[in-house]
């Protein structure tokens, strides 16, 4: 790399980058529409609706297949430089995610809901940090697991990973743990809700707080009440879920501070010094996008401009996630041990049960918003 010069470096990047972009193009243009129209078990789009297989998950899976099957465990030299742009695209995607939120959108949900959700988000994060350190887990892995269990799974894990220098195998482990827990709760929750005679509002609030993955929140609410309409479980569950998702930047910031503070102590440096030298400043870009979105500088909600902006964002994210998948080495996951699984399950179960108790005792059957 060192002897190639800028032009040579760009040329070296192209083959791998072309593979990442081409893969995503095929997934979005051909594979995802095919899955949406395929009838399985008598239901059109079963793969998308039930397995939640979208181009994002497919990008990670195909990336994994490239490395672990096609490339025999190692990315070949001709594609290596291109795949190294992975983190650039992930960071750019995270920055653009900021455009989904506005300061005003927070205000619509209500103070009590925000307070309750934030308590659960940060309570879970503290619990994972405590248990992770007790079990001797790697700090990067704790950071990603805390974000994933505290907020909403995949997005939070991906958003936090570059800031805490997590390995792709760490992210894969965390995602596998929380998705596994989510699948279990997807089947159990509707029966619990019916048995306890929960209202749609209570069920939505519980599931929106207690289940870790956005797609699974949706599926669980629909299993409880299949009607999609305002005032149903899915409508309430998504509102609570959205508030949780909005907290991603705050969680990323908090976990980043925690991670780098310990780094400073380990290296006998001041926190201010380490923040100045190493703080991932792309997080500031995220807040910049939120600010632009709040003042309407990137188009009004529902406008063609914002639609195009989000389409570009999904491409950026998708390209990065093909690369992210290609850096997941299944052999590393096998040797990682069961600690992350134990911590993830403990945090998930605690949050799930405490959220149920809080909702049953403190949340009324009728909606307050």
């Amino acid at each position, binding site marked *: *790399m060192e002897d190639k010069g800028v032009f040579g470096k760009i040329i070296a990047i192209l083959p791998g980058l072309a593979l990442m972009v081409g893969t995503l193009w095929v997934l979005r243009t051909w594979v995802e529409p095919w899955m949406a129209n395929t009838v399985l078990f008598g239901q059109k789009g079963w793969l998308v609706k039930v397995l939640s297989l979208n181009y994002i998950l497919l990008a990670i899976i195909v990336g994994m297949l490239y490395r672990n099957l096609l490339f025999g465990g190692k990315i070949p030299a001709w594609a290596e430089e291109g795949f190294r*742009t992975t983190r*650039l695209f992930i960071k750019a995607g995270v920055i653009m995610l900021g455009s989904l939120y506005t300061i005003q959108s927070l205000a619509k949900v209500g103070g009590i809901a925000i307070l309750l959700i934030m308590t659960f988000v940060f309570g879970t994060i503290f619990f994972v940090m405590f248990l992770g350190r007790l079990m001797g887990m790697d700090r990067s892995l704790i950071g990603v697991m805390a974000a994933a269990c505290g907020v909403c799974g995949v997005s939070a894990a991906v958003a936090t990973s570059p800031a805490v220098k997590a390995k792709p195998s760490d992210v894969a482990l965390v995602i596998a743990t929380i998705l596994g827990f989510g699948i279990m709760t997807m089947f159990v929750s509707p029966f619990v809700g019916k048995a306890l005679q929960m209202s749609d509002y209570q069920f939505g609030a519980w599931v929106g707080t207690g289940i870790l993955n956005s797609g699974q929140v949706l599926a669980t609410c629909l299993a409880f009440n299949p*009607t999609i309409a305002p005032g149903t479980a899915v409508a309430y569950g998504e509102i609570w879920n959205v508030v949780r998702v909005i907290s991603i930047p705050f969680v990323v910031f908090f976990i980043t501070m925690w991670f780098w503070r310990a780094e400073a102590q380990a290296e006998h440096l001041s926190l201010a010094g380490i923040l100045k030298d*190493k703080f991932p*400043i792309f997080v500031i870009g995220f807040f910049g996008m939120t600010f632009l979105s709040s003042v309407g500088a*990137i188009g009004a909600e529902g406008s063609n401009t914002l639609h195009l902006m989000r389409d570009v964002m999904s491409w950026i994210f998708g390209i990065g996630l093909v690369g992210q998948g290609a850096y997941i080495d299944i052999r590393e996951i096998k040797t990682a041990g069961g600690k992350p699984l134990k911590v993830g399950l403990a945090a998930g179960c605690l949050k799930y049960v405490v959220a149920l108790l809080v909702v049953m005792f403190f949340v009324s059957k009728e909606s307050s918003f």
Partner: protein
Amino acid sequence: MAGEVKKSGKMTVFRTDRHEDVAAMVLVGCLVVIVLCYMAFIVPTVTVGAPMDGKLVAVAVTESGMVKKGEPLYSFEVKEKKWSQGKVEEKLVVREIKSAAGGKVLKIVAKPGDELKKGKPIVVLEHEKGTLP
């Protein structure tokens, strides 16, 4: 050899994380500018489609007429469902869709009374250059 192993695991082409962060922000900045410039100055026409499944009630603009930002384009009837006490209550609501940018109405594709699926085109606009449609 150890150095090579470490390098092969890296997911970045940049010298430091700070360089990569700056590059990511520059990349996003460029993309945002490109999208905004494209929409404001290059895209010739924009199609305003149905916001969701429903019925077109009335069109508030005329072909070749001008429309200002924030002025109504059309009224759209949608079915709102409210789940209450274990029952679904449905009611029809008419929503007024406003223009995101000022400009000239080139074409009205749908007519009042049409049942439209989400995204189906209703009005084609030539927006004022420099505004975001």
